[in-house]
């Protein structure tokens, strides 16, 4: 299955989200099994293709032909411990907050929760900055395409995978903290 040709989109590093979405809806609307002439198997395959193209990491691996992410990009290594420690702090404070039953114990948690929230926002801002730099690299690779270096594609794919996952994990914690502090 070639996800690009399934969705009739150009086979290249950068694709616009809206373009993928509208190509998907045009085809999926007709293939949905509820429709006369629908085809459940083709519908599922189209869904998988769209999921690959919407995720820059999977899209780049599709182009490079390499499946697994084997490298820890240098910048990801920098973030690794920072993110891990914030996730850990956040989960343990959230658990404490959920079990804190007296006003005093809740009050005691506010200062550490606020500290955590500000550390989290700082790391999240750095992650977003990194993510934007990855987007710029993606555009560069796209301009050079198809002369792009496969190793660069793979490294960028891995970077996107880490950045995306950590960003959503931190964002999830940020929302949970916001709920606790409001």
């Amino acid at each position: 299955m070639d996800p690009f040709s399934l969705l009739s989109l150009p086979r290249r590093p950068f694709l616009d989200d809206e373009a993928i979405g509208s190509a998907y809806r045009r085809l999926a609307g007709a293939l949905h099994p509820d429709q006369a002439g629908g085809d459940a198997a083709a519908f599922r395959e189209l869904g998988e293709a769209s999921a690959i193209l919407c995720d820059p990491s999977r899209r780049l691996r599709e182009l490079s032909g390499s499946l697994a992410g084997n490298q820890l990009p240098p910048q990801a290594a920098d973030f690794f411990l920072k993110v891990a420690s914030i996730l850990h702090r956040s989960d343990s404070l959230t658990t404490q907050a959920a079990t804190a039953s007296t006003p005093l114990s809740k009050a005691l948690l506010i200062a550490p929760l606020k500290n955590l929230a500000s550390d989290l926002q700082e790391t999240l801002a750095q992650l977003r900055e990194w993510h934007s730099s990855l987007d710029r690299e993606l555009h560069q690779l796209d301009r050079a395409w198809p002369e792009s270096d496969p190793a660069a594609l793979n490294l960028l794919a891995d970077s996107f995978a880490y950045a995306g996952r950590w960003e959503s994990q931190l964002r999830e914690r940020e929302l949970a903290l916001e709920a606790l502090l409001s």
Partner: protein
Amino acid sequence: MIAGIDLGTTNSLIGVYESGFPTLLADEEGKRLIPSVVHYGPTILVGQEARRMQSIHPNLTISSVKRLIGRRFGDEGTEGLTGTPGIPVTLPLDGGLLTPEEISSEILKKLKAIAEARLGTEVTRAVITVPAYFNDAQRAATRKAGELAGFTVERIVSEPTAAALAYGLDRLQESAKIAVYDLGGGTFDLSILQLDNGVFQVLSTHGDTQLGGDDLDQAIAALISSLASLPALSISDEIRLREGARSAKELLSTEEQTTIRLPFLESGRSLEITLTRSEVEKVCDPIIRRTRMHCLRALEDAGIKSSDLDQVILVGGSTRMPLVQQLVAEIFGKEPNLSQHPDEAVALGAVLQGAILEGNLQNVALLDITPLSLGIETFGGLMNVIIPRNTTIPAKAGEMFTNAVAGQSGMKISVLQGERELAADNWTLGSFEIPFPPAAKGVARVGVQFSIDADGILQVLARDTGTGAEKIVEIKSAVEVSDEAVEAMLAGSLEHAFEDMDARIFTEARLKAEEMLPAVESALEQLAAELPADEAKLIRHQAKEVTAALQGKETIRLKKALTNLDNATQTLATRLIEKAMKTSS
């Protein structure tokens, strides 16, 4: 003909597609809204008649049974019921134990009778709506209720999705992003959709199946109780108070104040109390505010900002409250769209989904999603997601697993639904054992394939291929999948089986490292004064080794480093406890 049914917590409706229009059907009294209340007297009563019996025979009358459907004792929402935790909920009624689906089926039978009386023909096929955030067990139980009522259930459709269909029917040429905020009697959902030339694509959904108008009624009842200094009430009085609270809530949507009169309570006194809208809003605010987080998460999952939304559609009876409308405006930064009938939009959407299935409504397609991730428990008690949440359905995905231990002669497959990393924190939908002859590590191979149909109901298929002897084990009503399909899936994933296993073990070790490293750091900090320098140095060295192994992504080195760190920090733990004891004494 396919009927569309909104099986609500408080009220239910039925409709059909007639001469090109969705029409809701009324009972003999001309009412379309049928209270979801069942009374088990000499005869079974449903609807308004049952509601009248509720305060007289509270033990024989059931309302809001939807909050219990598909639940097990011990789940949230089952507080106050007696039963063995983990066992599906049953209620003692009618001289025996009844399941929520049996009780719901009485409501559906009533709706069926209304439709048949009105149309003069048998109605045997139905589309039934459920909250978007219902899990697999709740959806399956709702389907069962439909079958018990004599319906062939053609589709289980999510309520906000149905409401979006009702909203979008007049706007088929448009392209727009909308949010549907659905706050009903017992459940809350927020779904985000992209409408695009007749295609309704659900992008994300979040919700709470235990949050709705019932909770507001309860909070208002508690407010009345405390304002009037009521003593502990009998069950009948409790129900009358709850009804008083509900009607006060409804009146205060348009009035600034209202008086509640409950004469001749069983406790001997009569109650008369005046409530203002602001008093009631004060107790309702924290409950309604709980919807905010779900809205933000749904936006996050859809990858959009609230400013990208063209409309925020309100449905569900509770959205009549001015406070709800204000809060929605605050959350999304725009005035909500009130064009849809709060009680009827979902049922109309169910009718439209029926019309799509029958081919009566062409060029309209509904692309719904699964609200919760699906996966299995893997080695180490972790959730291994196979189909992530917000995946468009129907969908199918598979993965290959191998035995982790030499000589192992079987693999237990626990099917999970939920978003938590630890398997134990998610819902277990079912589990089964795949036996195979004792095999060396990594030799036995079990392919697990998940398939979600258009109803969002899951079928799981597992097959052992390690010995060449194939065996299919199914949970629920798994359909046969062609051997070729399974072969293709296996061929695709076999080569990655070992890498997968290694990755899982690394992940497990990584999780442990993520827990250990900050803990070690904080312990060292707290004990800086009393810890001998050489001991601290050793621990720092071991911690560095863990960090290095993490960065190098070396599984074996990481496991070894963690064990060393474990050993080196044992005295740290003892010292910490001693210190804590000293400080507190």
